[in-house]
């Protein structure tokens, strides 16, 4: 029951976030985004109803909840005349940021939205809600806004990886604020090192799991782009052996780059340590000073 109570709180926080996001989208005149967010909000509210019912011990089956008066009234409030179909679909129980957090924790390196979605799909089931590049850019901006409003109010933030040369946000990469600063620095060798590290982490995780098609496919895609991995991947007869083959090949190449990369990252991290909290998490942006000149 405690877990359910916790999840209710998570959903409540999610609803608050979504309401704020809807308001922002409406103010910005972005109707498409507002519509998508409203749908997500309705889903979250449904999830909240269900979780509350579970707390009461009524445990009504999904879908029927919508017929009670409360939900009906709320539907009218949100103007969702067409929400009947949406109501029947279970909404995302976990907010997107937590799904991203799960996948990133497994990868343990800064990653692009596509890889995050693939990893989540392979290990935790398909991502609920939309995980596109644009959506994640919004997510990162929301996180930044939240951090600026109340620093360190959340246990973790989804933040940027920083380029080692200018300490600016690296294009299209997400990271977690609790990681060591070094891990979030992206030097010239880091994309490859991170790819190989991700391969090792995924392979190790896959080795501990029961075999699944999704994980096998993900591993194969990593194996293809690591020298020496394909042959041993094919030779291995057990899934655990395949995972071990990928990890081993990735480690072999990692040795070549690791030291130089670590030096780059350490040097950059030392510089980044002097930044303010916000810039250290979300990156330094070069300002164009033409206007003031």
């Amino acid at each position, binding site marked *: 029951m405690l877990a359910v109570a916790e999840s209710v709180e998570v959903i409540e926080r999610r609803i608050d976030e979504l309401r704020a996001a809807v308001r922002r989208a409406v103010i910005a005149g972005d109707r498409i985004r507002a519509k998508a967010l409203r749908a997500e909000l309705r889903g979250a509210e449904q999830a909240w109803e269900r979780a509350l019912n579970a707390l009461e011990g009524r445990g009504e089956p999904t879908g029927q909840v919508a017929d009670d008066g409360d939900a009906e009234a709320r539907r009218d409030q949100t103007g969702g005349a067409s929400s009947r179909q949406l109501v029947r679909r279970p909404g995302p129980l976990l907010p997107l940021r937590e799904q991203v957090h799960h996948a990133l924790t497994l990868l343990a390196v800064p990653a692009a939205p596509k890889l995050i979605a693939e990893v989540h799909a392979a290990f935790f089931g398909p991502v609920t809600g939309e995980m596109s590049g644009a959506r994640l850019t919004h997510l990162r901006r929301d996180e930044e806004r939240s951090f600026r409003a109340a620093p360190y109010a959340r246990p973790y933030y989804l933040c940027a990886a920083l380029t080692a040369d200018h300490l600016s946000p690296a294009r299209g990469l997400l990271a977690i604020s609790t990681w060591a600063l070094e891990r979030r620095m992206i030097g010239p060798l880091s994309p490859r090192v991170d790819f190989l590290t991700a391969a090792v982490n995924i392979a190790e995780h896959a080795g501990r799991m029961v075999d699944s098609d999704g994980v096998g496919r993900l591993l194969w895609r990593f194996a293809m782009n690591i*020298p020496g991995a394909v042959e041993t991947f094919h030779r291995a007869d057990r899934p655990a052996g395949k995972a071990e083959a990928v990890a081993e090949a990735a480690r072999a190449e990692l040795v070549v780059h690791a030291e130089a990369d670590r030096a780059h990252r350490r040097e950059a991290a030392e510089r980044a340590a002097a930044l303010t909290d916000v810039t250290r998490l979300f*990156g330094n*942006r070069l300002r164009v000073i033409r206007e003031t000149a």
Partner: protein
Amino acid sequence: MTAGRLDRLRGTAAPRRHDARAIAALAANPGCHRRAVLDGAGVDKQRVAAHVGFPARFGRSQFAISRGNAFEAQVKANGCAELLRLLRELLGLSIPEVAYDDLEQVAGQDGLDLRYARSRHLLGRAATSGRGGTFFDHPLLRLDVAGQPVWLEPDLIAFQVAGRFHVVEIKSFAVVDGQADPAKVSAAAVQAAVYVLALRQLMADLGHDPEIVSHDAVLVCPENFSNQPVAHLLDVRKQLRVLRRQLDRMARIDDLLARLPPELTFDLAFDSTGTPTRDPAELVEALNAVPARYTPECLATCELAYFCRHEARGCTAALGRTVREELGGVETVAEVLGLAAGTRPADGEQAEVAALLQTAARLRAEVLS
């Protein structure tokens, strides 16, 4: 002097910026004076064509653009993982050569000057030290076309420690069973040649041997019916020669201008709302003053093609390169028919063609009867 003249030709509008595609298109039909003059002056051909009643019916499809972008993103995903494998096989990149520099933005900014300076710095450093960077993602290069700087953005440049720079061009058309659409491959080759030329110019500016940039570009395409990328080397020496000649010609545009009436202009005379007010008939006359050389290939590359095609109606050249070569010296279709029917006296040069045409006409008549 020339610059003032070109400004007059263009009129009040701002000069149009060229890109690699436009430069590649220039090389596709080097004999066309009209294109050379209009492009040299930076005239917006699209609007001119629309104003004289022959709007260009091309433009890239949105689907093609997103497909191209998606494929490029896939190839470059995860630190260029797929590309790295391909280039290790094709160019023999050694294992430590994996460094990647993103030049699409500099510190979150995408100003052209800033990006150019950074690209120049990083590429120069790689050339000097032989180290420091293998992949340069979307560097910004510059090429002077008829006195105007043109910004160019290759998909990627790869550098080998032991070797040279290679321009990598990522295209989303498929290579099926080792074969691809020749027209698309040659278009890609010309585009790659534009980048090679710009990169060589950069290297020469920095005091390096321009030959450090390989004339073998790397073409990355999806293989067969999958999304799996495959890489091939593309020798662009021939395209480089054509391009250089064409750009030289544009630089010596004075010769072309000298033959044109001094008061000539392609100004559309925009009013305050941006609507062109120039008399279309007058504009047609201005266009007619510059000789064009229409070929059917123009339809794919030039905004004015429909206008030129209309103008070239009845000419043998409008039927394509092969027809023009076969019928060398015979200008119009009416002439060809006259020669074939024997109703037109063939002079010395045309005697051979006339005999061929008459044979062809006889064969055709026999087949049809």
